[in-house]
């Protein structure tokens, strides 16, 4: 019996080996991404389709690497010896690090070699990843922040449900009408609420047409050496808004990041909120028939601000593995991921922008837009901004963002005045930049 079994096993092994030799070996590449949940399932489907289409030529092994932070930390740890992946999704604020590391193969190289036409990529999206006319990474999952409001609550409060507030003066005015208190004066619904999210702070600098750091907002030949939001008054303006909202009892504090604000909006406890365009699909699904969701542009700080939003999200980076076959395979894969049909599918599944204009012509995209007209606001907002507001690049962005959130808390808890918050925040970020530039 045992002999028979071992014979069978040996036979299987032999068959397996020979069949592997018989087939033409496909070029295998590894793709690291950070999309969990529904978005991760969409990625898996897209990779599966790619593998089917390129069967026998290219095989992509897709690996989920946890959050954006985790993924970039893993590549930092592995990068000393060999590149752990061929294509990798990196978040917006990891861009400067990737450029400085020298591990990345700029997309521009592949584009130039092949004379690939990139004119169809949305210019306001490409601008973020273009430094000195070199496109470093391929935009993939791009989003902007958006204002979401509860249309049903607007109607109840006697506000026009088709008009979204455009700036904080209007938000405060609307919020006062939207707030509901019970007999004891406890707030049952806040008119407005937002997460304490460092990304918004960056967006508002762009909305005020101001820079975050020096050296052309970190996009010059030399990397940034210090922040400029303290001198420009940009930080002061944002913190004053926070202070006004908290001190006036207009909002309650909803934690760092925007998960808690999102939950509060879905349950109807806040009537207006700020969130990424990428949250649209999940907001619509979670709210269901409870109320109708409206969308508006990300609000200005002052009524007369003339800047625009920049994109966030992630992009696809090709890592320099030194293996030409794998690099060419990676390029094929990247091109596939931004092709109109795939982008239309991606957009419908997630709410991220289709990154090429050509996608707008795809039937699936048109259907999705007809079903969720709210998404039109996101596209309008993207087209209303300009490449010059593409946002800052900064090597220590993750830390800077966390510091912004921490100091916002110290401000609204009354520990620091607006002026001291700005000074201390600038001091801490500057010292982080200084140490980074000293050691790298």
């Amino acid at each position, binding site marked *: 019996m045992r002999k028979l079994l071992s014979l069978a096993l040996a036979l299987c092994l032999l068959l397996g080996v020979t069949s592997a030799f018989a087939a033409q070996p496909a070029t295998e590449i590894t793709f690291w991404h950070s999309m969990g949940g529904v978005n991760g399932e969409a990625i898996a489907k897209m990779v599966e389709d790619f593998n089917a289409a390129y069967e026998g030529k290219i095989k992509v092994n897709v690996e989920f690497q946890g959050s954006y*932070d985790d993924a970039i*930390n893993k590549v*930092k*740890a592995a*990068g*000393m010896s060999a590149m752990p992946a061929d294509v990798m999704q990196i978040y917006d604020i990891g861009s400067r*690090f990737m450029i*400085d*590391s020298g591990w990345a193969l700029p997309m521009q190289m592949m584009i130039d070699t092949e004379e690939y036409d990139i004119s169809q990529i949305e210019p306001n999206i490409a601008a973020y990843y273009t430094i000195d006319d070199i496109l470093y990474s391929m935009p993939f999952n791009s989003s902007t922040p958006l204002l979401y409001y509860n249309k049903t609550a607007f109607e109840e409060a006697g506000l026009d449900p088709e008009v979204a507030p455009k700036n904080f003066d209007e938000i405060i005015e609307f919020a006062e009408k939207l707030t509901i208190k019970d007999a004891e004066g*406890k*707030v049952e619904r*806040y008119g407005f*609420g937002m997460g304490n999210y460092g990304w918004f702070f960056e967006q508002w600098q762009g909305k005020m047409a101001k820079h975050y750091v020096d050296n052309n907002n970190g996009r010059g030949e030399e990397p940034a050496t210090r922040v400029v939001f303290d001198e420009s008054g940009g930080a002061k303006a944002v913190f004053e808004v926070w202070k006004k909202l908290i001190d006036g009892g207009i909002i*309650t*504090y*909803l*934690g*760092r990041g925007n998960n*808690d604000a999102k*939950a*509060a909006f879905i*349950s109807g*406890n*806040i009537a207006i909120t700020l969130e990424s365009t990428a949250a649209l699909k999940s907001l619509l699904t979670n709210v269901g028939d409870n109320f109708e969701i409206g969308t508006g542009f990300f609000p200005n700080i002052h009524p007369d601000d003339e800047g625009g939003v920049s994109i966030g999200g992630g992009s696809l980076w090709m890592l320099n593995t030194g293996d030409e076959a794998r690099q060419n395979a990676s390029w094929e894969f990247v091109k596939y991921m931004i092709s109109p049909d795939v982008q239309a599918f991606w957009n419908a599944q997630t709410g991220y922008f289709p990154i090429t204009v050509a996608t707008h012509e795809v039937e699936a995209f048109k259907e999705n837009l007809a079903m969720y007209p709210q998404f039109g606001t996101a596209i309008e907002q993207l087209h209303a901004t300009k490449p010059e507001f593409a946002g800052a690049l900064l*090597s*220590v962005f*993750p*830390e800077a963002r*966390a510091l912004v*959130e*921490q100091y916002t*808390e*110290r401000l609204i*808890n009354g*520990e620091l005045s607006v002026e001291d918050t700005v000074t201390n925040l600038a001091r801490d970020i500057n010292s*982080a930049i200084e*140490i*980074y530039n*000293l*050691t*790298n």
Partner: protein
Amino acid sequence: MSAHQVDRLPARTGRPRPRKTFYDLIEPYLFLAPAFAVFGVFLFYPFARTIYLSTFLTDKYGNAKVFWKPENLGLQNYIDLLTSDQFWASVLVTFQFVVIVALGGLVIGLITSLLTVRKYPGVTFASASYAMPVAIASAAASMAFRMILHPTNGLLNILLGTRINWTGDPAWALFSVSVLTIWLASGINFIFISAGLRNVPDELYESASIDGANYWRKLFSITLPSISPTLFFQIIINIIGAFQSFSQIRLLTQGGPGDATNVIVYAIYRDAFFNFRFGTAAARSIILFLIVLVITLIQFSFEKRSVHYS
């Protein structure tokens, strides 16, 4: 028990000792070698490396790059920390957290195990409930508490009819995180203290009853002194656990609001794996090590005076 005294062999006498060979000399070290190899790789080397790193600034890959600073003998990281208000705030927060959690966990564990020491219907269910937190991952519990403590839709605020910002208000944040940690630690406290209670000899209670002692008298004069080794052990375990608490802070408050829950371990994580400044993180670790060392020494001197081993 004195098992270790029984198996001691009688000393060899009469036969002259043979001359020591080279093998005899190295033999004990060969036995120690595996342990030293393991400790060396996982304990001594990392420790030495931490001390080394703490005198440097690291580059973006975490390599020691700049000796910081030569004129201060490489102690600049320590000087920066010891002169920063935020560091001292984080030390203070850590101590508050450790004291609340160590004592809270012990008291809850003691009460729950006293409640289940006698047999009554449903005692097994009660014991299982009290022990259950042992089986709950702190990350999962933190996610559940995040929803329970949500400022506008949280279960707790709805039940209490309040509008307290449990994790966003500096007055409540440390308390909320501590309560979660106490609950998580209560299971292991319950199990150990229950085991300790079962080992108290019944004769002591019998003779106390004959002498007319009431419940409280028995509790304070018999039970607590008898289980003092267990309580002492549990306090140490609780303190170590509290110093290591991470996921609840990472998930509930991220050290905030401001620095209200920024305990040292979280600050180390932040420096090392978020800001990629291993030098400062290493310096923080060394300071944490010294703090824990001092506390352990205090605990053991305290043990000699107050813990009663029968």
